[in-house]
């Protein structure tokens, strides 16, 4: 006999409500008890229950049609894992209770294995039922499923669950009244804090802003300002969705909210003003725009969009005016394939008040634009059938009839008019890089109050320096160093000796670190690090961070991308490359470094290390280390 059972919860509540009358619920007319030890001893459409009795099959379409102890297999309910006197549970982490192998309950005295937490008496890797159930339901943690339950009031960060889930589980949907409780949820797993990262010093602590790529947040970590720089807290600056359910401990990351929400912070810049206020400019990937956040010294956070536009703030820089007003430079990359083609734009946003409270408190000023024209597709596109696109002369491709009269041609060649000719191909479909002036940028206010900006063009492959004079931006191109036709990426500005403006950036063509300084209106480049080492050349100019010692020397952090190490160079002056120190670390270190001074001889460098786990998971580590430097 086959019985069609209603939804498990219906049956359960039927039993719970009418348990005294529920004689036939879920049970067919009992045939003479037929004892069994395996299904083969039972008649067709019967199976051997954990109690060793042939029991009628129950049809189902999903697990929800079955008892808690069962799952829907091939259209009939089957015991999840049956056990009894004759069949003990094999997994020592489980025990046989009510005919099923159930996980041994955990509590403080019997902690879970590494990586697991004890939630609702069960060792789990993450909060069961996703950390919350809809109203009118509670969590059956062992099967990780919300089922109907009387309402129970639990605090945020707690999960309503069946405390007697096991008793409810035995096959046949035993009529046991449910008991509910509230379990403290574990904290959310911390997100992966990735570049970009900015280190700042505020009062007696260090602040590190980074992009949480797990949840798409701009996050602020607070650290003690002496080694080993313990992390004190983690605060979401932007990216936390409003009204999202709390599914983890409220005192943990993101207040227990797991829903990612808007993606913000993939580009960010920050500065701390004299009053301790933190100003942050950040990219909003979800809304495609620029946002600003201000965290007052008292902890009050304001955060709002400044402007929107395609790709706006893909790269940002932020500085403070002499009066503490935040100034932001934001880059929108060119899109030559858009219709109409879009030029790259570099725009400054100057705050009128501090802190600026709304988007109306900002004035926009265009620093520069750059149009990017891609080379035409060879032959204008695919050739007609039977023809191939071949180069007739450099830059001139034509569709020509394909022939077979040649011997096999070399790779990259095709036979046409009896000759092997080089095929003209459209560029392959690769991930695009940011195009235009501003792909790397920096912004600075000199001691004389002048606002200056630097922007590298990934199209022109050079570096432009801008000085704001009145309401205008005066532009000068800083010539690349000898032997290079591509320099200026990862640019950082510094105020050098006698108020001179210096710029440090990468020579991308030759993998060198370059220092530019202005002399008589002309920018002169010199190589600070050629990258030449005893084991060959290292590319050493990526991700530059620059700090200036009060004595005038520079401290430069940059990345060796051959070894993926953080490099520190102390005491750099024009004509003096300084002393090099390599901070070798496991993983790909040296991303997005930044430097702050915490004492007369004490500096801190923060950098991010990427680690590729054997599983393929990508994680990052923010690492702070002390650096002793007296300015020599």
């Amino acid at each position, binding site marked *: 006999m086959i019985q069609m059972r209603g939804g498990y919860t219906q049956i359960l509540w039927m039993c719970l409500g009418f348990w005294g009358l529920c004689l036939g619920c879920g049970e067919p007319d009992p045939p003479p008890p037929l004892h069994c030890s395996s299904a083969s001893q039972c008649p067709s459409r019967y199976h051997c229950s954990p109690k060793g009795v042939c029991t009628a099959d129950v049809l189902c379409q999903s697990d929800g049609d079955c008892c808690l102890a069962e799952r829907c297999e091939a259209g009939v309910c089957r015991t999840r894992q049956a056990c009894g006197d004759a069949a003990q549970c094999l997994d020592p982490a489980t025990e046989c209770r009510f005919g099923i192998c159930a996980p041994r309950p955990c509590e403080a005295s019997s902690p879970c294995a590494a990586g697991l937490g004890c939630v609702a008496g069960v060792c789990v890797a993450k909060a069961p039922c996703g950390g919350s159930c809809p109203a009118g339901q509670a969590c059956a943690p062992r099967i990780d499923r919300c089922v109907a339950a009387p309402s129970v009031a639990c605090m945020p960060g707690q999960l309503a669950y069946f405390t007697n889930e096991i008793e409810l589980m035995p096959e046949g949907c035993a009529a046991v009244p449910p008991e509910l409780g509230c379990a403290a949820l574990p904290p959310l797993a911390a997100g992966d804090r*990735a*570049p*970009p990262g900015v280190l700042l010093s505020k009062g007696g602590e260090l602040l590190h802003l980074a992009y949480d*790529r797990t949840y798409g947040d701009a996050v602020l970590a607070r650290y003690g300002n002496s080694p080993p720089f313990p992390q004190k807290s983690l605060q979401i600056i932007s990216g936390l969705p409003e009204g999202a359910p709390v599914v983890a401990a409220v005192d943990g990351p993101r207040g227990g909210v797991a829903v990612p929400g808007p993606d913000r912070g*993939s580009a960010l810049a920050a500065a701390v003003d004299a009053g301790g206020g933190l100003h942050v400019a950040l990219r909003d*990937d979800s809304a495609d725009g620029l946002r600003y956040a201000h965290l007052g010294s008292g902890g009050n956070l304001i955060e709002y969009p400044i402007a929107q536009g395609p*790709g706006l703030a*893909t790269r940002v820089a932020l500085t403070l005016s002499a009066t503490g007003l935040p100034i932001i430079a934001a880059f929108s*990359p060119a899109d030559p394939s858009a219709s109409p083609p879009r030029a790259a734009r570099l725009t400054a946003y100057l705050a009128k008040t501090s802190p600026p409270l709304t988007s109306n408190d900002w004035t926009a000023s265009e620093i520069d634009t750059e149009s990017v024209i891609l080379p035409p597709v060879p032959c204008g596109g695919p050739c007609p059938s039977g023809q191939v696109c071949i180069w007739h002369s450099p830059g001139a491709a034509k569709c020509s009839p394909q022939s077979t009269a040649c011997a*096999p*041609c*070399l*790779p*990259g*060649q*095709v036979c046409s008019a009896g000759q092997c000719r*080089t*095929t003209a*191909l459209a*560029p*392959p*479909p*690769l*991930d*695009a*890089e*940011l195009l235009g002036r501003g*792909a*790397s940028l920096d912004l600075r206010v000199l001691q004389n109050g002048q606002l200056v900006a630097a922007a590298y063009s*990934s199209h022109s492959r050079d570096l432009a320096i801008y000085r704001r004079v009145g309401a205008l931006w005066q532009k000068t191109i800083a010539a690349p160093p000898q032997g290079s036709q591509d320099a200026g*990426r*990862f640019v950082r500005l510094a105020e050098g000796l006698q108020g001179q403006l210096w710029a440090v950036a*990468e020579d991308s063509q030759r993998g060198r670190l370059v220092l530019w300084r202005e002399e008589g209106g002309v920018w002169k480049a010199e190589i600070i690090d050629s990258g*030449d080492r*005893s084991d*060959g*050349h290292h*590319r050493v100019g*990526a*991700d530059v961070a620059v700090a200036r010692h009060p004595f005038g020397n520079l401290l430069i952090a940059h*990345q060796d*991308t*051959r*070894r*993926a*190490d953080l490099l520190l160079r102390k005491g750099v002056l024009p004509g003096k490359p300084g002393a090099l120190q390599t901070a*070798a670390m*496991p*993983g*790909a270190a040296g*991303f997005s470094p930044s430097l702050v001074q915490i004492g007369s001889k004490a500096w801190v460098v923060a950098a991010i290390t*990427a680690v*590729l*786990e*054997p*599983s*393929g*998971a*990508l994680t990052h580590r923010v690492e702070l280390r002390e650096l002793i430097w007296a300015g020599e």
Partner: protein
Amino acid sequence: MLKRWGALLLPLALVACGGQSCSGCDGPLTKPQAPDQLLIKQATQFRMTQHGFDVIAANLVALLKVLLGAGPGGQAQIDVAKLLGPQPLKFSSGFGLFKGSAGARNLVLTLDLASLKIDLVEGSNPARIRIGFEKAQIGVVQGVVFGATSFAGLESDAACHLKNGLQSGSPQARLATVSGAMDLVLGVDAGGKLQVQVQVQKPVIHEIGFTLAKDCGLTECTDKVLLESACLECELCATGKLASDAASVLKDALGPLLTQVMELAGNLLVQQVLASTINGKPLDIEIPLDVRDLVAQAAPPLAELLGEPAGPLRLRGRPAPQAFVVQDQALQARLDAAVFAPAHPCAVEPGLDATAVFALLPSGPPPPLPAQMLAFAQDGSQMQRPVDIALLLRRTAVDEAVWSLLRSGLLCMAVDTQALYQVSGGKLLVTAGVLDLALPGVRQLAASGAALGATGAGAPLRIAVTPRARPQDAPWVSLAQEASETAVTVRLGGLQVAVEARVRERWLTLVELAIDAHVEAGLQVLGPQIKLQVRKIDIASLQVVGDPVAPHADWAALAPTVAQVAVSLLLAQPLKFDVDVQAALQQVLNLPIGAELVGLQAAPGGDWLLLGLALQPLAGGSP
């Protein structure tokens, strides 16, 4: 036609570039830059078989006949005044009535060159090429003998026409019958210049006979010493006394005259054959060779993958001591040679550039010359063909060439996704997304910080190859002869191969490997081309170095697969290089002789590489 591939024929090309009109080389000649210690003794040899020499000798004979104005019957007509200058031939003494200042002028002789023969002088060192004639007949077409005389107590002069005296009046009328020989001696002077000397052996005059005839029109006969007989002083021409007196004197004079004529003819021959090529030119020379450019001409897309070398390959050669010898009936030229290139910083570690190792590498003696080689045509047919010229290259010189190529930075390659895509004709698109299959997480890494919308799957990769040009790693090359191809295996030790991904706007090294790889290729002469087919790349050993981003990746398993992909996709088709042997030969010998590649083979033991050429007279060609 890739004329500069003639430089593959190192000995020929070296001598070819000794001349100022060296069209096969770049730029003017400069002081060799390849250091002396790199010179490998007798690294290259040039051998010409008797058959090959016979082809050339036949041309030399024909040329000599042309130079001497010989007609179809082999009769050369020698205008002595034109050959030796207008000044008359002075006899050493007077004869008969000619008391002194006797001589001959306006001599036009005939020389029967039918018996002219050219041979190599076996065992000669320096090499001698002997041009001889046996019992050749000399006739006189015109000529005047003259001298001072005293007549009737008056001092005067007189002159007579010179006529054949032997079998005069018959077709065999002649002045004399002589035998003689001259040697062209292939020497090299202290300055390293080829100096071909003409050494004439004293002719043997077997017989001589002439008559004299009076001609009152001759200047000496119009003195009018005796007014009543204006031509009286030349009456002596008619007397047999003068002719008989003159016979011994003329015989004495004819020997040196012939010697002078032969010397002159020999020098003309050398000048004509070797004009503007090698004679008198320094043989310690160097040819710059832009290998990247050569590959670009054979396979433009593949050249794009190569590195930018620090400078051209420099092929230097200079005559070995006893450069030219005749041995085993073959003319041999032996050159000390070196291959060198300026150092590229990517390939040469400072202070680790010892170069004397190549000259010290062991090497067996050169192999005997094969009389014939198996030649393959482009249509696949094959046949045995005689070898006339063989160029032998010592394997240690090939080793030095490989070292130089590595040293130049040609293999310092950084091949990115786009270059691979282009060179494979769009068949190969290796991105982070593809690598992610073998190295999970790479796509994520590339996606982090990428432009809006980029997933990382399309992030480009780059493979950077850095060779280590350490002489102490030599030998790199092994040669072996197979049925139809010459197998060349190049061992590349300590090759640094880095796999890089475009991450956050920079090339980030994912892993750096130190690889010992064996590249095996087949070489074959196919008609006028040399075919190079890379067969396989074996990864002999692989070591992960540095601090890679993904140290757990199983690169040892992945690398051979990558190598196999490279071979099957990029090197599937052979590279074919046209070799203009003819042009190279033309720069050495100005003779209407055609030259063709016959075959290439490694000598047993693999110490020598031998390139065979065949010579044949050019149809319709004449010296």
